[in-house]
């Protein structure tokens, strides 16, 4: 009957389409879109691996193991890998310590000013990592640290031997920096927790602590685990924090990668050994793949975490009562450490001709000169336009491909879905510079063999690189979000003869909208601040603001770069506040509406 209806509607084309549609099932759209993205990941990853065995440029002939020998020396085992592990694990611990309570407080409780706090947390992503690093050096440093000097005067000693130029200090700074990543990752699932489970815990006389530990926390556990894995991989790939905070004396994989590919000028005919970058990429990818294995084991028990069902879903907020002030204190503390202090350093730097410690003499030099010169020096309208186009296009495409990939991973039973999820994480495992070089070479080859310049020095190539890089984080969010939506909602839709696309768009997407909004905001911000890939793939026509600010900072114009960064933070912060307020009010409207329908406005008060 269905077959005849299909043929009748479309004729012979319809018959073919109907067969194909039946063959592929309702998953044709997510399958095809996810494979487009994942094929790109696979191709670039294989290219990176290929580079590790090529002596020179990938277009040159030859085979070598020299790059592997270069990397695999005792120094790696005795210093680099242990340091990297401590930094990675330490960062995860700091992130979890802040992100989980923040996500709960700002999404599941009646804490006041939640939208403002969420926007403020997002703003910290806009502030470049090297600025935050400099900020912490000015704050905690045995010789010049402001906190050191304050402690020394408090304790009546000459000097306080407290510093951050070690693995724990690097983990601290990176943890603060990366907390928003996990915060956004688990905020969506936190918002959509079914409160009936918490209500059941209250009825069973569980106190607030037991409810949190035994009900709420296990329900968002996949998101927390996914975020932890992601943060570990991110932490071991970041270069600027260990380089600045660690003073270059704490070798980790990321710094080794940087030094290995930095052109040493003499005696080399052409490019630096990007094959070595590929080897470091493999070294970074291995622990990631191990971590992914455990993640998949959690995913296998996915149904236990489904909380958005067809029955009476109505998220509620927990009234903190007297604990509200403790909650506020915790949020404010994090914001001071991660947002206020770096921003203060940034603003202070922007007002001076040269960065210097606060003093009366320094105050006398304060002026707005840098603000007058900043935007023209950074590149003006073209730079801004490139940045906006990059952010918007990367956000839309990354969300689309992430959602489709997660749909296949979480919603289908195809055998390769776990492999697809692993592939989606690969870009995050491989250093961005290695990916960037692969794309750069592909762009050259496209020009050489097909006379096509679309991939060389254009925004398109940076968009592709960013979309593939963001796939890892995007799929963590959309995986976690889709895990919480029970299949019965889609089953109802199919019973009502809704197509796959209609089901996806009209039923599932609205339910996971908070996660998508957070993912979109985070993706846009990460694209804005990303430097290494945009720098490498940058040319005369596709420069973006992050690169201009970084190069200006690196080139000795720190104060001018700071002024540019302050302007961008201010503009992005306002846009962000508007976006989150809009999304927040939309969600609140849904909540109020559902409460009216059910006739109950109760909040959970253990």
């Amino acid at each position, binding site marked *: 009957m269905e077959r005849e209806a299909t043929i009748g509607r479309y004729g012979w084309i319809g018959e073919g389409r109907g067969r194909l549609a039946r063959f592929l099932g309702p998953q044709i759209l997510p399958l095809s879109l996810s494979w487009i993205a994942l094929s790109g990941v696979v191709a670039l990853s294989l290219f990176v691996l290929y580079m590790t065995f090529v002596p020179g*440029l990938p*277009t*040159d002939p030859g085979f070598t193991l020299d790059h592997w020998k270069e990397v695999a*020396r*005792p120094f790696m085992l005795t210093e680099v890998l242990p340091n990297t592990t401590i930094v990675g694990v330490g960062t995860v611990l700091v992130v979890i310590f802040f992100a989980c309570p923040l996500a709960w407080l700002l999404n599941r409780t009646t804490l006041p000013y939640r939208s403002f706090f969420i926007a403020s947390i997002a703003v910290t992503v806009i502030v470049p990592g090297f600025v935050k690093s400099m900020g912490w*050096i*000015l704050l905690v*440093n045995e*010789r*010049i640290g402001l906190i050191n000097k304050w402690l020394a005067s408090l304790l009546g000693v000459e000097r306080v031997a407290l510093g951050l*130029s070690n693995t724990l200090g690097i983990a601290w700074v990176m943890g603060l920096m990366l907390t928003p990543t996990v915060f956004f990752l688990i905020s969506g699932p936190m918002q959509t927790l079914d409160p009936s489970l918490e209500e059941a815990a209250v009825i069973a006389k569980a106190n607030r602590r037991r409810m949190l530990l035994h009900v709420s926390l296990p329900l968002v556990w996949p998101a927390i685990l996914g975020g932890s894995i992601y943060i570990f991989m991110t932490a071991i790939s970041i270069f600027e924090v260990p*380089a*600045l905070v660690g*003073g*270059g*004396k704490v*070798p980790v994989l990321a710094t*080794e990668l940087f*030094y290995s590919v*930095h*052109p*040493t*000028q*003499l*005696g*080399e*005919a*052409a*490019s*630096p050994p990007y094959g070595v970058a590929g080897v470091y990429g493999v070294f970074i990818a291995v622990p990631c793949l191990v971590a992914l294995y455990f993640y998949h084991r959690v995913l296998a028990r996915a149904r236990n975490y489904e909380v958005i069902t067809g029955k009476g879903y109505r998220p509620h907020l927990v009234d903190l009562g007297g604990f509200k002030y403790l909650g506020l204190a915790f949020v404010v503390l994090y914001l001071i450490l991660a947002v206020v202090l770096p921003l203060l350093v940034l603003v202070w730097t922007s007002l001076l001709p*040269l*960065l*210097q*410690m606060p003093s009366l003499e320094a105050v006398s*030099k304060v002026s707005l000169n840098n603000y007058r*010169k900043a935007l*023209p*020096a950074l*590149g003006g309208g073209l730079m801004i336009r490139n940045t906006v186009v990059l952010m918007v296009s990367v956000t839309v495409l990354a969300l689309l491909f992430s959602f489709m990939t997660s749909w296949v991973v979480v919603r289908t039973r195809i055998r390769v879905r776990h492999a697809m999820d692993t592939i989606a994480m690969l870009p995050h495992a491989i250093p961005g510079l290695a990916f960037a070089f692969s794309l*750069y*070479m592909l762009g*050259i*080859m496209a*020009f*050489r063999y097909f006379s096509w310049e679309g991939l*060389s020095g254009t925004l398109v190539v940076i968009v592709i690189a960013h979309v593939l890089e963001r796939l890892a984080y995007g799929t963590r969010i959309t995986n976690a979000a889709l895990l919480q939506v029970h299949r019965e909602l889609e089953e109802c839709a199919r019973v009502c003869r809704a197509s796959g696309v209609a089901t996806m768009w009209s039923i599932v997407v609205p339910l996971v909208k908070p996660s998508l909004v957070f993912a979109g905001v985070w993706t846009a911000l990460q694209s804005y601040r990303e430097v290494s890939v945009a*720098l*490498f793939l*940058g*040319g*005369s026509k596709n420069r973006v603001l992050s*690169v*201009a600010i970084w*190069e*200006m900072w*690196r*080139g*000795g*114009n720190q104060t*001018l770069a700071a002024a540019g960064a302050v302007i961008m933070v201010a503009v992005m912060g306002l846009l962000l506040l508007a976006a989150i307020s809009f999304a927040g009010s939309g969600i609140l409207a849904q909540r109020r509406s559902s409460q009216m329908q059910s006739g109950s406005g109760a909040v959970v008060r253990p």
Partner: protein
Amino acid sequence: MMDLGRKSTFLKSSVAGVALATVVALLCVIGPTQGAAQTAKGKQLLDELIAKVKKEGALDAAGISTLAPRKDLVIRAFLNRFGLKINFNFDVAGEESAEWSKMHASLAAGVPAEFDVYVGDDVKAEIALQAKRLQPVDNWQDLLAAVNPDVAAGRVKPNQVSFGPFEGYGFVFQGRVYGGLYNSKLISEKDRPRKLIDLANPKYKGKFPIAPFPTMWQYGPFVYPNKDEWLKIVGQIGQNAGAVLTFDAGSERVYLGEFALMPLATQSFYRVRDKDPKSPLRVWWPEDYVAMNDVLHAVPIRSRHPAGATLFTLWMTTPEALEIWQPELWNPNLRYPRSAFDNEVAKEVEGIKKKGGKVVSWFDNAQSKALLDWYGTKEGAEYRRKIVQAITQRK
């Protein structure tokens, strides 16, 4: 009446004086005439070049990132000087070494490089030259005279601008001199190191950051011929270093007071001095050797806009361009010093030589060039790798 002997002497000296005056007069006439002839030919070549630039309609030039605040001034001055209305993209947001690397990768693959003209030090230019990836400027001497008034007036010789192996290919517009700087509030002139090797002394442990670039340390064997011994010294210096930071990042930390001094960061000193005349930073010229290099513009082969690239390359050597870039970059031009700053640094460099110190660059004599060539061998490359490991303490 004069006796015959005195008369003869008088006649001889008179004849000599008249002859000399005649020669001088002739030179005064012929000299400018000769220069004018060159200028006429050069002017014609210049007009033709400008016409080609207008036809090309665009130019993409890579610039030094520190020049960002004056980027627009460079663009305007260049376009106005030649009456051009082209799409001129002067990009200062790239990293110099990375841009040259990408240039090599593109050209090796047979496609045009990203930029029409590149800026970099003499070593980068030499590597590109050896790989036959730079294109020469035809009639460069006449064109240079037509563009650069100092060359036209004879104040600067063409082979000071484009010298040695770079003749006609690379055009110097500035140099970099690698002395050190120190914070006079943290270390006195009496206590600071005298030579680079003094940094290996335990008393300086933790007092300075070091840049991870090996180039300036590679000059060491020129002055300390025992390469193994030099490597050992560099290793001790690396061990003593309190941090591994780039020149600007390290200088910033010295200015902030975290470290007392930084070797090889003189260019940062002048920039800081410009922004803060009361800065406690002082320059320090190592008494064993001070390294120098030249910074040039060069046009790669297969440039999309070769005429514009050529014109810009030549224009950047002019006094007009110097007045724009030097107050921002604060690098001296010691090949053909013209500004007060050039002369100030040139005087410092002379002072170093008078005190018996060595001022070294790769292309100034056969010995240093031979050392440079040795670094291009397998043995030299391995030695360079060990220098990097020594200064960064990565084994």
